[in-house]
């Protein structure tokens, strides 16, 4: 089996920025990772302690837990190139199947 992705997206409530981040991420995941990913969306307003544990500062924050290395991607993910870079999906040619 190829790399299994574990992603956590931290958001604060329902804001336009949150919406953008969630939709963009879902789209990227569908297109690039198909079924090899696990995505958790965490609302910090409901679970502030989780943010404390992860030391989240800015929202939205996407944490790529797996595969290693752990990486944080901050922002509404509107910059698709950077998101892909952060998720190690570009520009390595040997990526994917």
């Amino acid at each position, binding site marked *: 089996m190829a790399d299994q992705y574990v992603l956590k997206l*931290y958001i*604060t*409530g329902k*804001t336009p*920025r949150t919406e*953008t*981040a969630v939709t963009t991420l879902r789209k990227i995941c569908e297109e690039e990772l198909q079924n090899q990913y696990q995505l958790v969306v965490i609302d*910090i*307003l409901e679970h*502030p*302690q989780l*943010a*404390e544990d992860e*030391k*989240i*500062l*800015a*929202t*939205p*924050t996407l944490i790529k837990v797996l595969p290693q*290395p*752990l*990486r*944080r*991607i*901050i*922002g*509404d*993910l*509107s*910059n*698709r190139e*950077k*998101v892909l*870079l*952060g998720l190690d999906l570009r520009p390595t040619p040997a990526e994917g199947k």
Partner: protein
Amino acid sequence: MSNNQNGVFITFEETPADVRKNLISLGWPIQEWEEQRKWAFVDVSPQPGDETIIAGDYDLGALLARIENAIRKVNAQRVTMDTVSAIFSQFSDKRIIRRELHRIASGLKQLGMTALMTAERLEEYGDIARYGVEEFVADNVIILRNVLEEEKRRRTIEILKFRGTSHKKGEFPFTISPSEGIVIIPLSAIELKQKSSDLRISSGNPDMDEMCGGGFFRDSIILVSGATGTGKTLMTTEFTAGGVNAGERCLLFSYEESRDQLFRNATGWGIDYETMEREGKLRVICTYPEVASLEDHLIDIKAQIEAFQPNRVAIDSLSALERISTFKSYREFVLGITSFIKDRETAGLFTSTTPALLGGTSITEAHISTITDSIIILRYVEIFGEMRRGLTVLKMRGSGHDKGIREFVIDGHGMHIGKQFRNIAGILSGNIIHVAGLDDDRIGGLFKDE
């Protein structure tokens, strides 16, 4: 923070572990408070090894949520943010951070928090805070400075802005002591409210008492000024010994001579310091001025006075402390110490070394001559190739005193004040003139009995 008001400490720079360790050295059991839910950390310190990529617009909603969470957790009334400026190093977009800081500040205000925010400055007398935003979100602004002035470090505190009330303006020196934390020396807050008494105490020298019209006043400050070797240490020794002999407690600070030297000198004048100290009537503290900053010395002197509760305090010499300080802080020091001693209705005798052998004044005199009650001047008097010593009581508040400049000699029993110098003028200025001509017979009559 422990005054029954719980607190949240948001650390932007150091890790909570570091903060805990530093605060324990100041005597604050942070860990205990954390367990008792009186204190909570919000860790915003940079995480090493974290790779962060910015992809789009963001806000600090998570931080605000975490702060609110911590406040709820410990039911806090106070929030500290140390150092807000550090957050700018984690995020490159200053515009967003500014907006978010405003949001956090107003969020805290809504929660009714007393918030303390620290921000760093690039220059001591430049912009108030590094990114020019931190001060605008605050109601009160206090500036701490650590200024390098003539090769001396000097910490000052200034209240720049304090909404809704009046406050003292300008910079005040402060120091950090391990036992008390920040100790501020508020100068303009000193008031001249001390009582005055007409009780006389002995100067320890009968001749001197007579010149002063019966001794010093009990709660007066006496300044003894003179060049090196004129007998200032002797006067302090006699002053302290006179106090001990009258059953009073005396505290002597020496900044020029070591303990052994002082004790040997005293023995040389027939005064037994060792017995006096053993009986608890006297305490001699010898330090080099250089071991601490002037502010620390002031704190130390005050603490020693509080601890020993003396009736008399002698400082030999005050001007030695001038070496370690700048003009400004020295003036503040002298004012601080004199008003502290006067406030306690204690007799104080300070000595001041004049730089010139003949005549001259020192900075000390310029500073405290108006707040001292008595000034005694010791001078060398050059008479035909011989150095003699002379003294005069320049000022004695509330009492008549001998106005003459009298010769004195020092022997194995201390100081002996003799007759007034005659036919000589200009002793104080150092330009000695023999007024009545230089006829041999007149010289013979120079010290003629009255």
